[in-house]
């Protein structure tokens, strides 16, 4: 047994390095998408202390809007612009109808409100678009769908061009977000709200504007995530489940940390894949991805309750 745990997995990695690279690549693709979803959570949490339970359904709603508009005969890229418009309207509506009346309420009330938003979007989405599985308009958006076959060390490494595109776009979006948050006035305002709510308000930062902005950014993230995941296995309400994979990322990286979301997402994506392939499948019958990330996050929380990159908050009692 000790051999199976401590030696064989590493021997397998060395004996089939092409396969190891494939595992790492698949982990990277999953990881960057987890990171993207986690960023959506973090941005909203930082600016409003709201844990946005609706992030998953926003992914579904954005993807469904995109394919739904295309089914009505609208050209693909116009659909993207219109979908962004819909996500903006959604952000404004959420701020006006749900969040504004709840300003000053305890965090748990705002969290419950996002559960309400989730339930509303599920019902509304099903009425408008139906629950059937739909095909993502991958080719119409110009996303290549072929595979790149490489032969490292005489083996085989399959890289799907749509995965490469997803990784590239997600990485670009992450960089763009970091630049926006660090170099622009609005970005700094979001960070200021995260650092000290009262102080930010006292210097004239508009809570309403920032909330609309962060929910809209979460909508953009949802659209990119929806396109990337939808291109892999179609667009359906099952996509919502994928957002829950971001929860251990947040636990691991810290709920307020943008760096944590990115590093946590990549770590979980790659480690859960490595563990599943080299330990989970041979020793535990597989399907360890369901729990691995949570166990990893739990171990981290035992030593760092605020997560790897979260802020240590000491509250006086």
């Amino acid at each position, binding site marked *: 047994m000790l051999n199976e745990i401590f030696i064989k997995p590493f021997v397998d990695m060395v004996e089939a390095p092409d396969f190891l690279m494939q595992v790492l690549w*698949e982990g990277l693709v999953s990881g960057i998408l987890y990171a993207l979803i986690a960023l959506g959570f973090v941005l909203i949490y930082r600016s409003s202390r709201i844990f946005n339970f609706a992030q998953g359904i926003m992914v579904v709603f954005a993807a469904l809007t995109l394919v739904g508009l295309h089914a009505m005969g609208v050209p693909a890229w116009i659909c993207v612009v219109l979908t962004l418009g819909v996500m903006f309207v959604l952000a404004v509506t959420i701020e006006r109808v749900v969040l504004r009346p709840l300003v000053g309420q305890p965090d748990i009330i705002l969290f419950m409100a996002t559960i309400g938003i989730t339930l509303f979007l599920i019902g509304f989405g099903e009425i408008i678009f139906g629950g059937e599985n739909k095909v993502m308009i991958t080719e119409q958006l110009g996303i290549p769908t072929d595979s790149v076959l490489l032969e490292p060390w005489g083996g085989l490494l399959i890289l799907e061009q749509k995965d490469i595109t997803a990784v590239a776009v997600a990485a670009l979006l992450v960089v763009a977000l970091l630049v926006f948050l660090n170099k622009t006035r609005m970005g700094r305002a979001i960070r200021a709200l995260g650092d000290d709510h009262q102080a930010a308000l006292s210097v004239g930062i508009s809570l309403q504007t920032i909330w609309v902005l962060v929910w809209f950014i979460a909508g953009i993230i949802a659209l990119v995530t929806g396109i990337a995941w939808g291109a892999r296995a179609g667009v359906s*309400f099952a996509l919502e489940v994928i957002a829950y*994979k971001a929860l251990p990322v947040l636990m691991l990286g810290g709920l307020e940390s943008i760096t944590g979301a990115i590093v946590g997402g990549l770590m979980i994506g790659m480690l859960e894949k490595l563990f599943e392939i080299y330990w989970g499948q041979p020793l535990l019958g597989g399907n360890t991805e369901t729990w691995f990330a949570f166990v990893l996050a739990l171990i981290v929380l035992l030593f760092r309750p605020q997560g790897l990159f979260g802020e240590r908050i000491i509250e006086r009692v």
Partner: protein
Amino acid sequence: MKHVAKLAAAAALGALMGSTALAEGLYTPNLAYRTGPFAATGIPLMNGQADYMAMLNARDGGIGGVMVDFEECETGYSTEKGVECYEKTKGKAIVTQPWSTGITLQVLPKTNVDEIPILAPGYGFSPMADGKVFQWAFNAPLSYWDGASIILKFLQDQGDLSGKKVAFLHLDHPFGKEPLPYLETKAEALGFELLPIPVGLKEMQNQSAQWLQIRRERPDYVIMWGWGAMNAGAITEAVKTKFPMENMLGVWWSGHDADLDIVGEEGKGYKSVSWSFPNPDAPVMADVKQHVIDAGKSQASADELDGVFYSRGLVISAILAEGIHVAQEHFDKAEISPSDLRWGLENLDMSEARLDELGLTGMVPPFSTSCSNHAGHSGGWILEWDGAKFVKASDLIMPDSEAISELELSRAKEYAEANAPWPVNEDCKM
């Protein structure tokens, strides 16, 4: 005093309405799942079921002159919600249609007490086929073990399975695990290596780890037991990893046109076992079109009507309607009770001639049930994706009844012993 009078009046009105409701029709609730991760599979099935009953109501004024009260209770394929739906609808129901193996397993003991038949065509717990032990449960026209047996027989026709490796890619859920006992038995008997690969509910759309395992293990065949979003996830990964599609076969819930549309031409050669097949020329289709679709009473979209799942939904309701009809004839009354319906479902004779009479020509294989045989063991066809639709790739293949029956009896006995005291049908002498 005024309040008491009001309450009495309300109670009288309620009693009147209650009795009217009972006389309104044959209440046949369906624990539907049009929402959630499995909705893509559920919607066409539910539409087919509802449309068949709507057609009977419009064309014939119901069954035996009594309208069918076909109501859906949404479960989202969640076992907890399914049990709630069962409890909510059981009061006046003559049948329950649980639509998930998880829900079926939960309501199975309850139906013994409530004495309501479970109709689970082609799903649920396979030993339910043993009608003596599971007197209130029906999985006709065939069980999951029948399905697994048909798949293995088809593979054996392609060549000896001895020494081969067969991956079993399945949803990590009671439904997905259901055929494992049969497959394990047959793996030992036929000498092939069975490699179970579970897919978690959260991993349905991201099965890269499962398909990396398939790439590493290089199985000769992949048998898929998928439902909902798992199907599209698996098929896209199979295409991506260049697994030969002709060596991949799914259960009947993994043969949905919309799942294959995602890969289109690249999915060519993928197969699925099926106990139903769409026949656009069948008389029932014309009746559904005339009385339901054209009348604007259907929720189905136009491109759904020729699909495998819509057609299967029609067949499922036809089985229930036939059970009701048989019971009405036998007991010589139109308003039947759940226990009457149980008799009807135990005495189905869906012969070729009867299927023709019902307008279901070619849409389901002939089968019959009895008090000891609640599955019918109809046999099934292998369907193949031709790049645009499913076509028949085999004649009717019958399951290996001998091996299945042995396993059914032993597992049914085990279940009854584990849940003792479990009432069995002592009157059934077959």
